[in-house]
Each structure stands twice: as structure tokens, then as C-alpha cells.
């Protein structure tokens, strides 16, 4: 269970900051929400995808004849049927590095073809599709396709893929190196390390994990031959992005002939923002067959095709003084991009990780280099807390290692090195400039709330019960609010990363808000209504929010990196201000007074000093709709749009403290207490954010204790379903003690920072620090994730890692 301390802090005395109930919940609770698998258009045919059964091979032949003759089969297609389709693009090649990949026809880095033809590069690599009358018939037909492979040598680790003699995945990429990327000051860092009183080093494996949204991905394509328009219904967190990428860069059809609709989406955590082959395939096959074509993935299919996360092998070094002052940090990382560069995977593995490695600390010299390599595994992408979690893990492990080396308390070392409040905005020397923060306040609150001072006594008490108690701290800074378009272009991102909102006030006084963002379970309909209602001073029940459909909403980039509340919500607030400003001008006409005497407050305009002379919001809405008596400089109606491109990112932060107990007999690790104090600036709806924090922490604990996408030597994914891939269950969630500090960001009008995924960033480090603390008297200095009972049991018996 969770204890939450601290009070909620409404910002303007209005509905923003209040824990309103989610208006999305009733339909979810009744099972009435429509997910992509629930869409049933008349005449729908069903698609199934054949993925490669081997990890690396030449395809010698594909025989589809038997499949074509099976009952219900409408079409069997292979790469040869799609030669005029452009490859899927990769739109985030790390800035400043040369792209080593076969180019897309438009001069972009390519990613992968819609179906693989000559060569397969991972198990699940799509090579053929079947469309049939029923899903069962389509699945049966897949089994009747025979593929002849000539096996090639397999490599699944990034460091091994870069070694001499490693199998080569792509002709155009010699040595399998997609990018060598660096940030920070190498010479200064090397010098600081060479001159340091103390240095500590660690070799870390940040294991590959699978996000595992409970809803697998799905897509429905519907081509209208009469109008030439395509509609794609897909489990996407960025319908506008998918529209742009698919129309302009893959299908080569006019932008305005493709509509993308995200119905209710069953979780994403980063994975559903990517372009996958199934999306163009359902559209192309719908056109070919003259019927809607639907595809819904299986769990094993998801495990073998939807982007996976983390996966770095790192050598990291920290330097400092004997009295606990950190002077340098350095990281060399081998990032495993999988078989193809996913839509934005290369950027996640480099910039999102590398620029974050110094965390909350004021460090004079820092340097990170990343070798991003191709291997015979599923493509790498984002995963809740992506990049930032990997960075926090390495830094927070290093700080503990350093504290142990100099015999200082880990909390005291951290306290000594926090970026001081007066140093903001703070340039971390790795490319990010932290916007605002009071790290000391946040850190002290977490330490106090966790009962850190009582830990020695608790350790003694636990030993009497046959348990080893350990405590681990992890602090973090997470870059969120992507973001400033120009800045992101320098990071190598193709396309703007602004966000838009439109507000339309109807003659009856009700309001429609449309945004380019798209919820994957974050109650946007509730929170965004709060934002508009708060600014306009009206009842949120009169505000309806639409998103997730390119026909209804203006452009936007979607939901990723915890950006919706600090990107879309400010766009809404700014749009509401335009509406208010127009109503003040019009109010002068309606009230018959000069504009400077008109006041807008609480959803009405009135004459300053004469509050009897007033017009309510509903009266104004109707009057603007009629447009009678308006001077030529005021257009009738109320319909405004804002495209919000912030001056810079925002940087939430926090400190988590994990307490674990290890069973001496079984090696089992139980998280017995967990304290988290996060700072996401001003929060729109604390009830909704609370749920996101709780879920995020458990996700992070999952990586620490049980999750692992494990490939065998042949490149088969051993953890190919939920019988073989462990996800945290209800009994795995410990007691949480949560609190927050509030440091508004100066980079948006709401003072908001990202919130949704930030609490996934530190838990893995906190738990591993706690486990190492519990085992430190045995000489254990590090233990790789996931911290399984067997691993711990072996260490308890003196075996080396």
C-alpha cells in the first residue's frame, strides 16, 4: 500500500491541481472502451505475419503455394509483392555522427523494408503475410508456408558484434557499428581521473527488457477506393507522427489522404510510437483486396517484434577525493540496437542515456561514449524511463561504490555533491542544462521519510530473523518535455517536436479542446479539460477533449518521454489565454465600455468597478457565434490554436530509497520498504500522477528483480511469452511511502515537468544498491540485474559473479 504525505497544491485556486476523478474510468470499468482489437468494420479480412524462425540467415526460397490453397485464404504476399514501397525510416540518428545505414530514398537513414526478402536478421523478422477470412484461417496458413534458410552465424551482444570476425548484419555497415557517439569533455575527464585521489570502476550490464504493455499491438487498414483515402486504426501513441512517416516516407501517398486513428490504447510505455511493418501492410493489403484488413498481434509476436529496451554493456569510472567530493565520471557503453535501427532507437541509446549520466551531481568533468551496434536481436527502442534509467543506474551504482571505497556514508556522499540551488540553470557539461530544482530539499526529505537513520538498528533486528537487510539510495534527473524543435534537430531528430492545441467555444458555451497528443492510459480527457477549464474559469464538465485522430485534432507529436502534460497542456493554456484576450476585446463592445475597463475573471467579463455590468461565458459564446455588432478587427466565433515549442526541455528529479531483506537460506530478495520523493513541478491532477508514480516504481523494480529478455546462442528469444518473461505481480509490490517537492519549470506557462515515467528511472539502482549493501560484508561489490534468488544464493555461498 502507499502512504502519501504532503498536501496537494492547486495552482490558481481553480480546478487545476485538484485530484478530480478520471472521466475515462467508467467506460474502461464497464469494458466499453474500444481498443484496436475490438474494431470490427464490415467485410474485414484478417492478416497474420510470418516471422523468421531463425535469427540470421539467407532466405533461399519461400513456397507459399500450399498456403494459398487453404480455406479462406485471400492473399499470401512476400517482399517481392512490395518492391515499390519505401523502407521504414529511422528519424533519430544521434546528432553529430555519420549515419551508417542504407539511405531511405528521401536521403534519410533507412530502417528496414516492409518485409525482409533476401536476409533475415532476428527471430520474428517479418518475411510473409497472409490475409484470410478469419484470424484462425490466417494463422493456419502461416504454418503452411515453407521457407528454406541458409543459416548465418549469429551475434546477440553489442560488444561481440563489434569484435573482429563477428558476423556482419548489413553490407552497408562494416563492423556492425551504427554510430560512435560522444558527449562531454574527454580530455578534461581523463585528466581528472588520472589525477584523482580515488577512482572506482564497474563493469555493468543493463539487461535487455521487454516493456510488455498488456495490450499487444494491432492495426486495421481501410482503403476507400471511391475517394482514394486510407484510414489506419492502430495502437499508436503518436497518430500524427505515424501519419507523416507513413504517407510521405513509406507509402508515397498524399499526406491528406491518410487518416490515422488511435482508439483506446492498452498501454505503451514507449513501444507504440514506432513505425512497424504491419502498419503499411494493412493499408496496402486493404487496397489490394478492396476490404478492411485487420491484424492483432499475439504475445509471442509482440515479444519477437515490438521494440525492446535498455541493453547496454558499460565500463564506468568515477573519480573523487578522499573526503567525498566527486571530480569526474566517465562511461564507455556498448549499446545493442538490435537488427535494424528502429524509428528513434539510436537516439534513445545515445543522447537520452549519455547526456544524463551525471545525475543530480555537480561534477567538474564528465564524458560518455556510446558504441551503438547491430546484432541479431529485436530492434531496440524506448522503454518507460528510457535512457535516463540506464544513466541513473550507472551513476548511482558508482556513487555507492565510491562511498564504500572511501568509507563514507552513501547519503553523505550524495548530499555533498548535489547541484546547489543557486547554480540553476545548471549546465551539466554533457549537453543538458537543468532548468530548476532544489535537490537538497528533495534529497533530505527522502532520507528523512525513509527512516534512514534507523537502518543500523533494523539491520540488527533483521539478522535475528535470518534476514539480511540492505538499504539503497538512488537520485536522478530526467530530461522531459521533448521539446524544443531546433534543439532536437541538433540531436539528430527529423521533424519538429512541438505540440499543438485547439480550443473551439460552441454557441452554447460548451468547449471542445483538441490536441495532437494521444493518451495510452493517462486520462488526458480529464486532465486537459482541467487545464482549459482552469484558464477559462469554467466548469470542466463543459469541456470535451478530443485527441488520437488526425481528422479531429491538429498536428502534434504524441505522447512519449512524459511530455504530454508539459507540452500539450501548456499549448491548451496558451490557447485559452488567446480566447480570453479576444473576449476582453469583444467584451468592450458588449459591455459598452473601453477595453481597459474590461476584466475577465471566473468565466465572465465585467466592467471594472461596476460588476453589475457583466456577461457570462455562455452569453459571450452565443454573442460571438452570432457576431452581431462586432467591429471589423474582431472576427466572429471563438476558435484558436497554439503550436507550443518550448525554449528548452524540463528536468524533473527525485530521490528514492529502497530497503530490501534477503533470505539467508533461499537468496530471495524482498523489497520491504520503498520511499520515493519526486519533483515534477506543478502537477495537473495528483490522483492521476499518483497512479503513474506507483506503476513506474513497480516497473523499475521489475527490471531490478526479475525482467530479462534473454537470447540463447542461436539468437532465439528464450523469454518469448509471459510464461518465460517475469512481470511484477500484485504480491511483488511493496509498501510505498511517497512524497513530492514542487519546483516549477520556467520553460512552460504551467510550470510543469514530466511526470508519467520518471519514477521508473531510479528503482533499479536503488534496489541493486540495497542488495549490495546487504551483501557487502561478504565482499560483494556488484551484482548484475535481474537480482534473482539463484544469483544471490550463490553469492551467499561465496561464489563469484
Amino acid at each position, binding site marked *: 500500500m502507499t502512504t502519501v504525505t504532503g498536501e496537494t497544491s492547486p495552482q490558481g485556486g481553480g480546478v487545476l491541481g485538484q485530484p478530480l476523478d478520471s472521466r475515462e474510468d467508467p467506460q474502461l470499468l*464497464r469494458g466499453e472502451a474500444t481498443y484496436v482489437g475490438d474494431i470490427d468494420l464490415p467485410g474485414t479480412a484478417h492478416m497474420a505475419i510470418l516471422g523468421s524462425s531463425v535469427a540470421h540467415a539467407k532466405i533461399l526460397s519461400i513456397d507459399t503455394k500450399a498456403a494459398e490453397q487453404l480455406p479462406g485464404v485471400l492473399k499470401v504476399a512476400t517482399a517481392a509483392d512490395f518492391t515499390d514501397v519505401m523502407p521504414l525510416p529511422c528519424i533519430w540518428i544521434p546528432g553529430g555522427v555519420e549515419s551508417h545505414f542504407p539511405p531511405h530514398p528521401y536521403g534519410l537513414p533507412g530502417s528496414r523494408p516492409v518485409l525482409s526478402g533476401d536476409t533475415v536478421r532476428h527471430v520474428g523478422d517479418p518475411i510473409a503475410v497472409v490475409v484470410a477470412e478469419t484470424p484462425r484461417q490466417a494463422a493456419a496458413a502461416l504454418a503452411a508456408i515453407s521457407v528454406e534458410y541458409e543459416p548465418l552465424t549469429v551475434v546477440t551482444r553489442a560488444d561481440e558484434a563489434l569484435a573482429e570476425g563477428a558476423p556482419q548484419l548489413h553490407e552497408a555497415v562494416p563492423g556492425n557499428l551504427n554510430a560512435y557517439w560522444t558527449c562531454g569533455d574527454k580530455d578534461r575527464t581523463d585528466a581528472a581521473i588520472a589525477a584523482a585521489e580515488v577512482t572506482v570502476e564497474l563493469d555493468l550490464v543493463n539487461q535487455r527488457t521487454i516493456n510488455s504493455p498488456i495490450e499487444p499491438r494491432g492495426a486495421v487498414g481501410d482503403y476507400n477506393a471511391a475517394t482514394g483515402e486510407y484510414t489506419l486504426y492502430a495502437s499508436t501513441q503518436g497518430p500524427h507522427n505515424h501519419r507523416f512517416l507513413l504517407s510521405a516516407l513509406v507509402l508515397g501517398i498524399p499526406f491528406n489522404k491518410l487518416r490515422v486513428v488511435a482508439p483506446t490504447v492498452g498501454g505503451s510505455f514507449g513501444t507504440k510510437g514506432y513505425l512497424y511493418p504491419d502498419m503499411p501492410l494493412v493499408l496496402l493489403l486493404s487496397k489490394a483486396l478492396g476490404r478492411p484488413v485487420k491484424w492483432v498481434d499475439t*504475445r509471442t509476436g509482440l515479444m519477437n517484434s515490438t521494440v525492446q529496451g535498455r541493453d547496454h554493456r558499460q565500463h564506468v569510472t568515477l573519480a573523487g577525493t578522499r573526503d567525498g567530493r566527486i571530480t569526474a565520471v566517465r562511461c564507455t557503453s556498448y549499446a545493442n540496437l538490435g537488427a535494424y535501427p528502429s524509428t528513434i532507437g539510436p537516439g534513445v541509446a545515445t543522447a537520452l542515456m549519455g547526456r544524463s549520466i551525471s545525475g543530480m551531481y555537480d561534477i567538474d568533468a564528465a564524458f560518455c561514449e556510446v558504441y551503438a551496434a547491430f546484432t541479431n536481436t529485436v530492434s531496440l527502442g524506448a522503454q518507460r524511463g528510457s535512457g535516463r534509467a540506464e544513466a541513473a543506474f550507472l551513476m548511482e551504482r558508482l556513487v555507492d561504490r565510491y562511498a564504500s571505497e572511501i568509507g563514507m556514508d552513501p547519503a553523505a556522499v550524495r548530499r555533498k555533491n548535489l547541484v546547489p540551488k543557486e547554480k540553476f540553470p545548471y549546465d551539466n557539461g554533457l549537453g543538458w542544462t537543468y532548468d530548476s530544482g532544489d535537490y537538497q530539499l528533495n534529497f533530505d526529505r527522502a532520507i528523512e521519510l525513509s527512516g534512514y537513520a534507523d537502518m543500523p538498528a533494523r539491520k540488527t533486528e533483521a539478522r535475528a530473523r535470518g534476514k539480511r537487510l540492505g538499504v539503497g539510495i538512488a537520485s536522478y534527473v530526467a530530461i522531459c518535455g521533448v521539446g524544443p524543435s531546433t534543439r532536437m534537430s541538433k540531436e539528430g531528430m527529423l521533424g519538429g517536436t512541438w505540440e499543438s492545441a485547439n480550443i473551439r467555444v460552441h454557441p452554447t458555451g460548451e468547449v471542445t479542446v483538441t490536441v495532437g497528443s494521444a493518451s495510452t492510459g493517462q486520462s488526458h480527457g480529464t486532465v486537459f479539460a482541467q487545464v482549459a477549464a482552469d484558464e477559462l474559469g469554467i466548469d470542466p464538465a463543459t469541456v470535451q477533449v478530443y485527441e488520437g485522430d488526425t481528422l479531429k485534432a491538429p498536428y502534434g507529436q504524441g505522447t512519449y518521454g512524459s511530455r504530454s502534460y508539459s507540452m500539450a497542456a501548456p499549448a491548451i493554456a496558451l490557447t485559452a489565454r488567446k480566447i480570453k484576450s479576444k473576449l476582453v476585446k469583444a467584451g468592450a463592445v458588449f459591455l459598452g465600455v473601453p477595453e481597459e475597463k474590461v476584466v475577465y475573471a471566473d468565466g465572465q467579463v465585467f466592467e471594472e468597478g461596476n460588476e453589475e455590468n457583466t456577461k457570462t461565458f455562455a452569453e459571450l459564446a452565443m454573442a460571438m457565434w452570432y457576431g452581431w455588432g462586432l467591429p471589423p478587427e474582431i472576427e466572429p466565433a471563438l476558435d484558436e490554436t497554439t503550436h507550443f515549442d518550448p525554449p528548452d526541455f524540463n528536468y524533473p528529479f527525485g530521490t528514492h530509497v529502497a530497503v530490501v531483506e534477503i533470505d539467508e537460506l533461499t537468496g530471495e530478495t524482498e523489497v520491504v520498504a520503498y520511499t520515493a520523493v519526486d519533483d515534477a513541478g506543478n502537477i495537473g491532477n495528483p490522483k492521476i500522477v499518483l497512479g503513474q508514480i506507483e*506503476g513506474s*516504481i513497480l516497473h523499475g523494480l521489475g527490471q531490478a528483480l526479475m525482467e530479462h529478455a534473454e537470447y540463447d546462442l542461436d539468437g532465439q528469444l528464450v523469454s518469448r511469452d509471459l510464461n518465460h518473461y517475469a512481470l511484477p505481480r500484485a*504480491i511483488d*509490490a511493496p509498501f510505498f511511502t511517497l512524497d513530492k517537492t514542487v519546483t516549477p519549470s520556467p520553460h512552460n506557462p504551467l510550470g510543469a515537468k514530466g511526470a508519467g515515467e520518471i519514477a521508473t528511472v531510479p528503482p533499479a539502482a536503488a534496489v541493486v544498491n540495497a542488495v549490495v549493501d546487504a551483501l557487502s560484508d561478504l565482499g560483494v561489490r556488484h551484482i548484475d540485474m535481474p537480482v534473482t534468488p539463484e544469483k544471490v544464493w550463490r553469492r551467499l555461498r561465496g561464489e563469484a559473479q
Partner: protein
Amino acid sequence: MDLSLNVNGRPEQFAAQPNELLVERLRDGLGLTGTKVGCDTGQCGTCVVRLDGRSVKSCLILTAAAAGSAVTTIEGVTTPGGELSGLQEALRQEHGTQCGFCTPGMVMALGELVDGTADREAPTEPEIREWLTGNLCRCTGYHSVVRGVQRACSAARADAPAQPATAAASGQEG
């Protein structure tokens, strides 16, 4: 083969393949899409329905094996757009959802626990968590769901006619 089921109080007769799963009949055959498919291996619990009153995973049972039984799906818990059940209302108040994909399965799995609460002691938090182990949720971390069940159990016991057994346990409520 010709089979019959009573689904949400309505008799249904249909022809089914011997290897048809109950979840396929419900979703594809009867259009009751509130029941979800999340994992294909019985791990995630999004497909839980009640079969003759007991919660079962409908992806692990053949339609033929359920023949003649009474099935309750999420659609049978409320009328469209209608009033929420006690459990659903409690989950709403605690925001025990996020993306909602696991939610119908959880409502169906937890209903049995909450329904039984009126005339016995309220389940403890560990008991609720044990009950939830057959359902996976990636969004919430389960805390809000547990709070929702506690709230629902309290409400169910408050509404129940006073009995000696419940009166003795009432000190544990809240």
C-alpha cells in the same frame, strides 16, 4: 458441434469448432469485446469471466467444455452506460485503472472476492494481493486496485445486514 451457453442471462445457441476457445466465442462469435486477450498463455488475466459464478480464464477453456454453463462477462455486470457495480465504483474512486486493458478481467476476477465479503471478514491487503496474482497490470503497480478493493469491501460490509460474524470484525474496516 452445436452448443449452447447462457451468456449474461441470455440463452445462446451456435455451431462451434471443437478447438474453439471460450474467449473466441465471446469476442468473435458474440461480439462481447469487453473480455480481452493479452497473452495467449493464461498468464495475464485479461480474459477472466465468471463461469457458473466462479472466475475462470476464458482463453484456457474450450467453448465445448463450458457448454450448458452460465457465463457472465463484463458486459453482464452493468447495462451500457449504466450504474457501476460497487466494485467498479470503488475502483473509479481510487482510479484503479490507467489504460484499462486489464480492467475488465480484474473486475471479473475480483467480483468473487468482494461479493463474499458481506458475510465474512474483510480481506487483508496480502489476501487481496494474492487474489490479484492471476491478473497482470503494467500501468498502476496494483496499488490503486488494492485500494479500490478495500473500499469496495468496506462498502459491501456496510451495506450488508448486520450479522454476528461481521459485527465482530467491523473494527477492521476502514
